[in-house]
């Protein structure tokens, strides 16, 4: 092999080193803010550590996990059940509705941008603000905004967040105000479909349904997959929307998602139990995500060459 001239060799080394310099901040970031906390939380989960004590507590090995699957299982199991129920209902709803909305808002009609902004606006609301807002608008009292509207329509008042029976339904329903986030991604994907494909479809006499099923949906599958994966992760980790709600305990208990339980352990100074439960949730999410990846043959990534 021919040796490179000294000057070119030094430049190649410099390029090689500078490429590392560019990725270094990300590597450091991931190491410090992801890897280290993950490893330490795994270690904590095998100890009895309190948030009020600096040092790591004594090793108890699998004791925290034994408690979770033992005495706490009724509570944790219910919590997992509610979390899965929420995911199973809200995720498809979000996907379908945000896609339907995107189909409409992807059209080049005069003034359509204003609608895109309007639908995206709720996403920009800070979680605390929207928590306070929804607590107030959708409380079960007959003076809440929604109940005032229902009363004016001569409909009975609804308990919304104030009852254990209706809190989850209300939470899912009001969560739909944030579909603007997914909608923007759908619009980007739909807009990226070559116009020529629609023109050919028109020439072939394809109607709107055929275009949707044969062109738009297949070409949107990467985005469906992306929204599905992020949706699963976000739904299983649902938290902000609950803790910021200022509602009756009965309603709050019905929204006892798994991350709320982790937060509760942490707030009870039980850092090790919070870590153990976090790892269980992490494993659940990892398994479901892995399965989703495994079954992603329906995703169209373009013609393979």
């Amino acid at each position: 092999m021919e040796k490179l001239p000294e000057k070119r060799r030094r430049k190649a080394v410099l390029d090689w080193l500078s490429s590392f310099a560019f990725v270094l901040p990300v590597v450091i970031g991931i190491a410090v803010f992801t890897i280290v906390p993950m490893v330490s939380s795994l270690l904590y989960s095998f100890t009895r550590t309190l948030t009020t004590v600096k040092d790591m507590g004594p090793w108890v090995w699998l004791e925290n996990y034994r408690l979770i699957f033992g005495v706490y299982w009724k509570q944790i199991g219910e919590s997992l059940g509610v979390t899965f129920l929420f995911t199973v209902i809200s995720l498809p709803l979000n996907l379908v509705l945000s896609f339907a909305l995107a189909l409409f808002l992807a059209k080049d009609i005069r003034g359509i941008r204003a609608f895109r902004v309007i639908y995206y606006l709720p996403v920009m609301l800070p979680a605390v603000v929207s928590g306070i807002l929804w607590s107030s608008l959708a409380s079960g009292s007959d003076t809440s905004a929604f109940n005032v509207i229902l009363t004016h329509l001569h409909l009975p008042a609804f308990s919304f967040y104030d009852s254990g029976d209706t809190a989850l339904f209300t939470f899912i329903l009001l969560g739909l105000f944030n579909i603007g986030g997914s909608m923007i991604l759908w619009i980007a994907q739909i807009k990226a479909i070559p116009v020529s494909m629609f023109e050919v479809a028109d020439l072939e006499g394809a109607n709107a349904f055929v275009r949707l099923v044969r062109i738009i949906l297949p070409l949107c599958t990467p985005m469906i997959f992306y929204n599905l994966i992020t949706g699963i992760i976000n739904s299983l980790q649902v938290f902000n929307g609950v803790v910021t709600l200022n509602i009756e305990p009965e309603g709050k208990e019905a929204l006892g998602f798994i991350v709320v339980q982790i937060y509760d352990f942490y707030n009870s100074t039980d850092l090790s139990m919070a870590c153990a439960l976090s790892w269980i949730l992490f494993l659940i999410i990892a398994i479901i995500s892995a399965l989703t990846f495994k079954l992603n043959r329906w995703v169209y990534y373009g013609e393979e060459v």
Partner: protein
Amino acid sequence: MKKFLAALLALLMCLSAVACTNPFEEEEDPEQAEAAGKVVIKVGVLGTTTEQDIFSRYKRSFEAKYPNISLQLDPIPGDYATGMNNYVINESFPDVVFTTGDQHAAYSSQGHFVDLRAYAAADDTFTFDDIYPELIQTTHYNTEDEGIWFMPRDYNKVITFVNKTMLSLVPGDNGKMFAGYGSFEELQANWDLETFYEVCAAVTKKVAENTQNPAGVSQEEKLAGLIKNTYAVDARYNWAPAYSPILKHYGGTMIDTSALNGANTDYSKVLSVDATRTMEAYRSFYQNLARPGYVKQSLTSSGVSLFPNSQAAFWFTTRPSWGEVISNNATFEVDFLPFPYDYTGVGCSGYAIPKLAESRISDNAETKPGTSEKMSNADYAWLFLKYVASEEGQNEFGSIGMGVPSRISLRNSGTWTEYGSAELNHRAFIEEVPGQTILSVNDIYCFPATAQKTVSDNCISIMTYVVKDGFWPDDLTLAMNSGNYAAIYGKVNEYKATMMTRINASL
């Protein structure tokens, strides 16, 4: 357009920079203060406007008294628990830290604070006897502990706030306003539990009449809040210092500390939420306050209390809540009466000296009198704590109106008695009511640390069901047992099971 956006961006960045600057313009840079030969003492304070206002007043007055000490604000990051946990993890406690009677135990029991008894014993100019003894009780971290882990700053006894404007429009059976008493002074002269219920009944009746006939309600009554969805009392039944004394009055208690028995404690007995006498107390609570409609049967969802919005004639709360009324720009007149039950709760906030302050010694520190040893930051922090408890410090604190001094000598005097108006019944905050027992509400600390929050939260949840019609039979004279009162027993048992799970797992 680009230029405009650039200018807008620059303006926003300038505004952000302003937001990051210190709100205390007179704040001296710690390094400058050190260079000027001063000892810098950092004080961890909550981020609320009131707490920071209190600190700035202390700072001005304390530094004038001790020119060689510079007090530096160290805002507790985030909410209290998160901020304190950060201090623990980073070993970054300031030299003094704000705490309260119901929040210090998690840290004092883990050795993060110094026991102030040692400092008091070595100081001839100070004695804890000057502080209300019931406040000293809240400075211990459990029923067996005798340490004094923080300096009580205020005396927060639960009393009754009164909406005088509303009551001046509520007639009694004799046609006189103030529910038949004619004036607030007359109501005050006759104030007891019977009178309280009598006024509650009159307010509820008046609100019901106005709800039935909204067209006939005068503008004055509307402005006073005598309309639909107003209640006689904002009883704060989701707050232990308010509900515990009422349950105790009716013979019950959710936490029975008399059942504590060292290592052999049976916590299912200590957690007496389902004891027959406690169930009977719930029933009395419901029967006397909820069934007649005196209290709202659900917690307000707006995050705002009823009273500051003129939606309640009475409010069971403590002095700092007055700030909520003021910040709500209330247009009604407020006055104060004692808590009408046989028991009332008391608590306090104050300042602790973290253990770390003992290991910090400033280059500018003086030597301790009679020794060659230099004073540590904890020694200087003690000077600040003594100042907080002194008449001078208590008057600085009292001048903002949101607290009652913890010092007994200021029981009837000082700036706090002049705030708002000297004509107000400030005595209600400190008055010893004949037959009334003052409870230090910190029984929760008899449970293992990791179970305390669960117990506290679930006890509150129980109270939210106690006030609901749906959980009680029509006939409340039935004997108290799980057959006659299945719904409320069911809920209480459910919560007790959750609490016992956490307690047992924490042991």
